[in-house]
Each structure stands twice: as C-alpha cells, then as structure tokens.
C-alpha cells in the first residue's frame, strides 16, 4: 500500500509580538551595521589615501631621477588606491607619456575628463599627450579647455603656462593667425616680468605682428637701455618689418653691450648688411643702382628657385631659365623704371613659386627678408 513517506515540516508561525520583536532586532542590526560599515570604510579610506599619497611621492621622486618605469608602477598603485584623486591619475598619465606610451596615457586621461571635463590639469595633460601624437588640432582644443578650466591651486600661473605651451605648439606649427589670437589676450599681462614681456614680443614676430613686438621692446628698453636681448629682439622685429637699417643699428648696439658673445650677433649684422646692400627698394638709390639691384635680386631668386625646382621638376626649371635669361639679357627697351618693375615683379613671382614648392632654406635668409619687405 502506498503511503505518503515525506511530510515537510512547517516552521512554527511566530506570534505578533515575536514578529515585531524580530523586525526590531533587524532594524537595530541595520543601524548598527551602518555605523560599523561607515567607521570601517572611513578607516579603510584613510589608510588607502595615506598609502596612495606615499606611493605618489615616491613616484614623483622616481620621475625626477629618470626612473620612469618604476615611477609608473608607484603612480599606478597610488591611482588605484585613491581613484578619487585626479592628480594621481594625471601624474600616472604623464609618466606613461614620458615612458613613450601616448595611447595608454590618453586612455588613462579619458575617464578623468569624463568625470570632470573642466579639470584644468587633466585637460593640459591630455593636450600634451595629443601634441606628442601629432594630433595638433585636438591638442589645441584641450589646451583651450585647460586655459579656461578649473585649477586646484595657482590657477592664474597654471593657465598662463598652459597658454604658453599652446603658443609654443602654434609657433612650431607656424599657425600665425592662431598664434596671434593667443598672444593678443596676454600682450599687456605681466608688465613687471621683463623676461615674459620679451618672450611675448618675440612670439609676436613669429606670429607676423612685428609692430606689436617693436612696441614691447621699446617699452623694455625704456626701462633698461642696457638690455642686449631687447636690442636683438628689436632688430629681429625691424628685419621682419623691412626696416633693415634700424635692425642693423640695434644689432650693433647689442654687440656693444655683449662684446664677448658676439659671433651670432655678428652673423645677424652681416645679414643686415647683405639685405641693405641688396634691397632695390631702398630710399635714395639712383636709377641705375636700382636697376642693378633689381637684376641682382632677380638673378638670386632665379638661382634659388632653380636650385630647388631643378631637382623636383627639371622641365619647369629649364623653362624658367630661358625666360629669366631672356629678360636679364635683353636691353631695357621701355626705360629703366619699367625694367626695375619687371625685374622685381618676376622675382616676386619666382619667390612665390619657391615658397609654394620648396622648403625654406637658411642660405636664402637675406633674400627672404627682401621679398618680405617687397611684399609689404
């Protein structure tokens, strides 16, 4: 006969009092555990933060000693232990970048920026990473975020540093318009910091705004007429402006102030002399002299273009040869003035061709300055 063999036992039902009492115990346990956990979490967090800080300091020291790999290990430990501290993550990314791993550094910075897109240091670090990878437009954007971002301390100084890094990047890229746009907001900053003023003035020259540079150098020289560096800067600005005589005067003045270290200066003086002697547009020259100088300029420009295009496009170079020679050898039928115009015009066109097709050559420094002046 079949019999039900297994009868599961029912747990005893609690009375209402027991039910409430059990609930009360649970609630007390929850409250107690919340306090216990909070205390434990505080102890744990403090210990982790302290250890992370120690690792960070060690990592920074190792970076200073050039031990990048060991530093990365320490900084990674710091960053893992105290993930809330963005400084550790940024330091780790920068050390990783220094170790030659820009992609890894980029990956490390992304979550930090996601967490706080306005974080100045993180934006600056990311800009450096991208600049290292040659992704300059993206880097520029992150530099801007760093300049206008939030900084935990020394905000003004760090922002200026970031801006100068961006300016250096733009100068290297020869992005004149962007460079000028970055320089204009700071041209009146730091009036007491002469070194910075001279740096800004120099960058104005690079940005193609030598007039602004001249103004700054004048101001610097008014304060200290014995500042040789300012004279040199002023000379460079004058060269850019095509005021070769002023440039020479300033270079000689600088030479007088630093006679012992004048080889570089002497080279610039020689350059100034060259351009002064070559410039066909110089005021006060006789017509025959202007003709001679213009022919000379055309010949030099032609040679420069020939040197460059001869390798790149032999057929174009040969055609240029015949055209230039025909012009140079033919007598000035329409008069000397027209001849000067024709020579200079052709030289300008050739120079334009050279600029578009060939890389700049230091040998052509004087030629470049003259054409620059003619273009003005």
């Amino acid at each position, binding site marked *: 006969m079949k019999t*039900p063999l297994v009868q599961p036992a029912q747990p005893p039902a609690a009375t209402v009092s027991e039910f409430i009492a059990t609930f009360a115990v649970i609630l007390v346990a929850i409250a107690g555990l919340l306090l216990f956990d909070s205390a434990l979490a505080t102890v744990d967090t403090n210990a982790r933060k302290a250890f992370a800080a120690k690792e960070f300091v060690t990592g920074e020291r190792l970076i200073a000693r050039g031990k990048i790999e060991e530093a990365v290990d320490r900084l990674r430990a710091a960053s893992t232990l105290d993930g809330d501290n963005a400084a550790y993550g940024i330091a780790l990314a920068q050390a990783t970048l220094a170790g030659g791993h820009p992609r890894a550094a980029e990956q490390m910075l992304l979550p930090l920026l996601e967490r706080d897109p306005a974080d100045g240091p993180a934006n600056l670090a990311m800009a450096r990473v991208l600049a290292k990878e040659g992704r300059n437009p993206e880097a520029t954007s992150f530099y801007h975020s760093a300049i206008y971002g939030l900084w935990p301390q020394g905000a003004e100084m760090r922002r200026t540093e970031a801006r100068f890094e961006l300016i250096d990047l733009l100068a290297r890229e020869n992005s004149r318009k962007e460079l000028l746009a970055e320089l204009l907001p700071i041209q009146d900053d730091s009036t007491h910091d002469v070194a910075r003023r001279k740096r800004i003035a120099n960058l104005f020259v690079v940005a193609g705004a030598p007039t602004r540079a001249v103004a700054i150098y004048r101001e610097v020289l008014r304060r200290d007429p014995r500042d040789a560096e300012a004279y040199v800067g002023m000379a460079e600005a004058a060269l850019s402006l095509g005021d070769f005589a002023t440039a020479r005067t300033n270079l000689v003045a600088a030479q007088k102030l630093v006679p012992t270290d004048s080889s570089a200066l002497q080279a610039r003086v020689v350059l100034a002399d060259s351009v002064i002697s070559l410039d066909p547009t110089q005021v006060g020259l006789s017509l025959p002299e202007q003709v001679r100088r213009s022919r000379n300029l055309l010949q030099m420009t032609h040679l420069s273009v020939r040197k460059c295009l001869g390798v790149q496009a032999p057929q174009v170079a040969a055609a240029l040869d015949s055209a230039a020679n025909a012009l140079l050898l033919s007598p000035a039928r329409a008069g000397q003035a027209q001849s000067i115009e024709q020579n200079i015009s052709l030289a300008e066109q050739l120079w334009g061709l050279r600029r578009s097709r060939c890389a700049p050559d230091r040998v052509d420094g004087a030629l470049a300055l003259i054409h620059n002046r003619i273009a003005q």
Partner: protein
Amino acid sequence: MRAIKIPALPQRVRRAVEDLRRKEDRLSLLLSLVIGALVGLVVVAFILLTGRLTTLTYLSGGSSWQRVLVPIFGSLVAGYLLYKYFPLARGSGIQQTRAALFIHDGRISLRSVVGKFVTTTLTLASGIPLGREGPAVYMGSGMASVIAHKLGLSRLQIRSLVPVGGAAAFAAAFNTPIAAVLFSLQAIVGDLHAPVLGSAVLASATSWVVLHLVLGDNPLFHVPAFHLVSVAELGIYVVLGVVGGLTSVAFVKLLLWLRAAFTRLPRTSLWIQPVAGGLTVGIFAFFVPQVLGVGYDQIERVLNGDVALKAVLILAALKIIASSVSYASGNSGGILGPTLFIGSMVGASVGAVAHLLFPASTAGPGAYALIGMGTAFAGTIRMPLTSVIMMFEITRDYRVIAPLLIANVIAFFISQKLQKEPIYDALAHQDGLHIPTRPGGAQPGIRRVSTAIREAPGSLNPEMTVGEVALLVTDSKFESWPVADELGLVGMVRTRHVAAAQKQGREDMTIERLMQIARRSDGERSVDLPHVHNDQPLSRALARMRDNGHKVLPVVSRANARIMLGVVTLADILEEYGVERADQLDYKDHPDL
C-alpha cells in the same frame, strides 16, 4: 536563536501587523527592502574586513617566507574551524544555497552564515586565491532564510526569500545590480521567469544603494573606455572566445578532478585537507606574489593595459592550479573571483599577441582582458547573458556589448560541448546532492513521484549470493530490487537477472558481481544508481524506466542520493495516470477486445 518577546502591544499595532502578515505582497515588498539593506551592509562589512585584514597581513607585500607560511597557517585554522564548527561553510556557497532552497525548504542556519563569514574572511585574508562573491551569496541567502524563519513565515515564503538575499549579496559584492538579479534567478532558482523576480530586483537595488552610501560610486574595476579599433578586430574576439572557452573547460575539469580526488580521502583528514591549498598557494607565492588573494588589483592593472605577455600567461596558469587546489581541498571561498582573474589574464595574453601582430587594427591588451573576463564567466559558470550584463555594468560602456556577446557565446558553446555538466551541478553531485535544474513549483496538472511513491519491499545486501536472493525475490511482484550496503543504496538488481544466474548454476555469485555484469551488458543504458526524486514529475520516472530498463525505481533524497525514501513502480505510475494495465483489464467492460 530564541524569538524575542515584547510585552503588551497596542491593539492598533497588533491589527496592523496582522494585516501586514496576511497581505503577502506587502510583506514581500517590505522584506525585500529590509533584506536588501541588511545583506548589503553585511557584504560591505565582509568586503572591507577581508581587504583590511589582507592589507595588514601582507603589509608592503610581505617577505618571501611570510607569503609561504601565512596561506598555510590560514588554511590550517580555517580548515579546523570548518571541520569542527562549520561543516556547511566549505567551498563556494552557491550549490549549498541551491541545496538549501530545493532540499531543505530554504532553511539555512545562522550558524552556517556566521561560519561562512568567519572562515571565508580568514581564508581570503591569508591569501588563498578564492573569490568572495559565492560566499557572499550564501551569506545573503542565509540571512534572508534566517529572517524569514524568525518571522514565522511559511515554507513557501522562506523559499522565495532565499534567492532575494542571494541577489542582494551579489549586487553588493560585484556592484552589479542587474547581473545580480539574473545570477540569482539563473544560478540559484534555475528559472529567469521565477515569481521572485520583482523581490530580487528590489533587494538588489536596495543593496546597491547601501553599497554606494557606504563606499561611494566606485566600480569593481576602473576600466578605460572600450573601443573597437576596426571591424576586423571582431575576428580576434572570436579567437578569444575559443581560447576563453577552452581555458574555462580546463579550469573546471581540473577543479572537479581534484575535488573528486579529495573526496576519496578519509573523512578524518577533512580538517587538514585545506592545507594542501595553502601549501600550493604558498609555494607559488614564494616565486610569484601576485598569485596571492583574489587578485582584483592585478586584474585592474591588466585592464588598464599593464601587460607583459609572459607574466600574464604564468599568472593565468598558476591561478588555475592554485585556485583549483584551494577549492578542491575544501577551503571556504568562491570560484567567481578566480574565474574573472583567469579570464582577464587569458584575454590579455590574446590581446597582447594580437596587438603585436596587428598593432594598427587592434586595441590594447586591456580591452581583451575585459572581454576575457566575460568569456571565462560564460564558459565556467555557463551564464553568457549574465556575463554580458555584468561586464556592461562594470564598464558602463555600451560599446563592449557586441564583442562580448560574440566571445561569450563561443566560449559558452565550447564549454557546453566539452564539459557536459555545469560546474555548480557537478560540484553538487560530488557532494551527493541532486538539485533540480529548474524549480518544481506547484504547477497544476503535473503528477509528481511523491503521489506514486510506496515503501520499498526491503533491500538486498551486495554481499548476498544469487542463491540467497533467489529465495527472497522469485515470487515477488517487484521486477527490480534495491541493493544497499551500510552507507545506503548502491543500485538495483533485476529479478530476471537473478533467475537467469540461478538457471546457469551460478548461485554462489554475489549480487554485487551480478550488478556489474548487468551494467556491462546494458552498455550505454547503464547508470550506476538509477533513481528519481520525490519532486520530479512522473513522466521523468517513466522516461528513466525506459532508459534503464527497470520497472521499479528507488526514490532518493536530494540531499543524499544513497538515502532511499521509497520506490516507485511502473504499475503505480500507470494507476496514477488512470491507465489500466492489460493484465488487469476486465474484458467484460471492453467487448471489442
């Protein structure tokens, strides 16, 4: 624990409480919140204590000898505690939770919960490379069970709260509330559509909130943004799926093989067995310190691209061995943590090789380590969907889904092909537990074995001879008889086999030998111990009879398959279905026959 009594209660309060107890939905809602909060807090305490003690134990890494001695000492102490005081706290806790749910009506004792907390904390703090998540799930389920029992809830209510506690614990342990619900329903209940879904979600969310309240919004791993460099990279994720699947199978097989070997050792050695794990870990850690502990910090480093191919390969291999020995020898700890570790190392290895070969079209090894974790989870635990959701919750990055799905499905498929039985089922079987893969429930219209069970006719001893047995069984209406030794049921012997042996004059042959010969002649149909469980449908019993050729099957306990509760016969099953057997038909009622 004795229930606490409080003095007089205002009538209004009493009525409100009684009303609450009557309305199961409201009570379930309230309990889900309470259990979620309590379990979350306990798991947070567990995580913090384990981490703190580990840091203190291995302050500044520790010396080489410290790395050898501490795991040995830790496993020795934990082993003794497990043997002496908390025998149910061994291992992961997942299969124990399932056993509690399906075999013991959801009952888990407070002692087991405390034991799990203490022994796992001790084990993990000493550097044994096992996970904290499985034990956390057991503790969560246990607390839910204890609370439900103390509140005097019904058996059904207690059972329904066990997976709720498990979900809350998983959510706090992994910081993945959605995956926690899926894991609980799949791994514990075995049914994603279980009615406890709502409660599990609520408890999981509450636990997650508690976790964030105490520890802040810190994911389990800080992972860099995932990106697929090129579509061709998906091909490499296919390779990762294959490698991850094969590694999972290797891990599972080694673990099960070692565990089977340990279970064959004398029971008196149970207290010292965990030391085998401690010793293995200690020796490995002497040379490679990163083997110690669950290794989440190491995983984070790898995820962030700090990968040296040789190092990650060595770590993957050592961790597979160390975790397998540690688990198999009976230390308290889970396999989810080691699974993630092994997966990340294997993924990083594949990624490192791929990046070496195709640097322009592949992401760094960290991305592969992430997907590798998912494949190992899908391959080892056999929950590909839970794995995808979990990785999504860890990374919080939607872009991870496509490669993860591809790699997971491949790993899951390979694992399923090469290792038929999922790990938690296999572990339960090694413990003699026969847990259903899906909940039985009270589905109307399904007749269960319990309705047709009858008392066994008695059992035969395997040492008895054919001649002795023939005297007992020849005239019996039972076509098969249970055979049992002093430890319980060992098999079934058919009456016709006994008669045939007697006819051949082999009366001195033992029943044990006769069973061996029968098994050999049955070939593929042979099962060492053909049986059914009380809660299984009668259709299952019929199918099993067809598969084994027995018309009588023993009904055994799910907690121990050698404990026979009774037998079920073909005749009884047919009777239960209302089918008359041909030999019992009254031909007067069926003139057409």
